[in-house]
């Protein structure tokens, strides 16, 4: 389910079936020209991946609003993310996943209260190409296997 009016209403009615949350972590830094396009591309790829994940398992996964952050201050950001997670866990959510292409999170994984799903990104290329499509599909398959392992 997505963070939309219709889906959240369905979520509230069927809460007991939805125990998994995915928060997309989306970095950006508008200060440096060199990284903007790359980060924008990662944001698009993140949306494609998380939406595809949500589509296959929409009865059990809620896709949280994007967590956008300026790159650099990972300590402060991990605290803020933990605040998000604590609030969501009051619903309750049993499994919280953080999906990102940002490598830097790997070092902070232990501080985070959710499971970090870090996957390597692609080089910037056409998002509509069949190559990218099959890459995203393959990643979604593997990530959903991982998530299903937590469900069992």
């Amino acid at each position, binding site marked *: 389910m997505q963070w939309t009016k219709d889906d959240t209403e369905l979520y509230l009615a069927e809460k007991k*079936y*939805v125990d998994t949350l995915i928060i997309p972590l989306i970095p950006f830094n508008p200060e440096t020209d060199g990284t903007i396009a790359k980060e924008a591309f990662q944001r698009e790829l993140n949306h494609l991946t998380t939406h595809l994940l949500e589509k296959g*398992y*929409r*009865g*059990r996964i809620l896709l949280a609003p994007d967590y956008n952050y300026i790159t650099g201050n990972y300590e402060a950001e991990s605290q803020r993310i933990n605040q998000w997670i604590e609030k969501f866990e009051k619903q309750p959510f049993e499994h919280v996943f953080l999906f990102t292409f940002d490598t830097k999170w790997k070092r902070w994984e232990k501080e985070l209260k959710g499971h970090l799903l870090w996957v390597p990104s692609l080089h910037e290329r056409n998002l509509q190409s069949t190559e990218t499509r099959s890459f995203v599909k393959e990643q979604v398959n593997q990530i*959903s296997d991982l998530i*299903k392992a937590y469900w069992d």
Partner: protein
Amino acid sequence: MSDKQRVSRRQFLNYTLTGVGGFMAAGMLAPMVRFAIDPVLKPSAAGDFQSVASVDEITNEPQRFEWIVEQVDGWYESEVQKTAWVYRTEDDEIVALSPICTHLGCTVDWASNEEYPDEFYCPCHAGRYTKDGVNVPGTPPTAPLPLFDHKVEEGMLYLGQEQER
């Protein structure tokens, strides 16, 4: 010649004005009528069939087929990928089932759970459906999987709208 009825000036003017007025009214009304009935004239999307697979590919074992449809949804016009589980019954009938679980909309898989090798299985809440798409009582889904309208033309399978059962 002289027997012919004479047309008076008044009659002549009456006829002419009625004629011209009639044309003007028709000219104004015709586009309005056209606009009013336009939705009726549009080919309905419901009747849209898409070619999905060659009939030879269809076996007794359900297989997943994918195709793309254009969908207009208020703000967005997008291409949406559709999926169906297609197989041939013992009586040589083609069955095309929607993979969307009737419980909360997850995607069901054929024979993905080892304990139920001849059933559709929903990974989210262990919903199950028999091969004909009927939900197994006691599992979360409350309705059978929808069936796609289908037709076969020149060796190709065409799928249309899904019908709830």
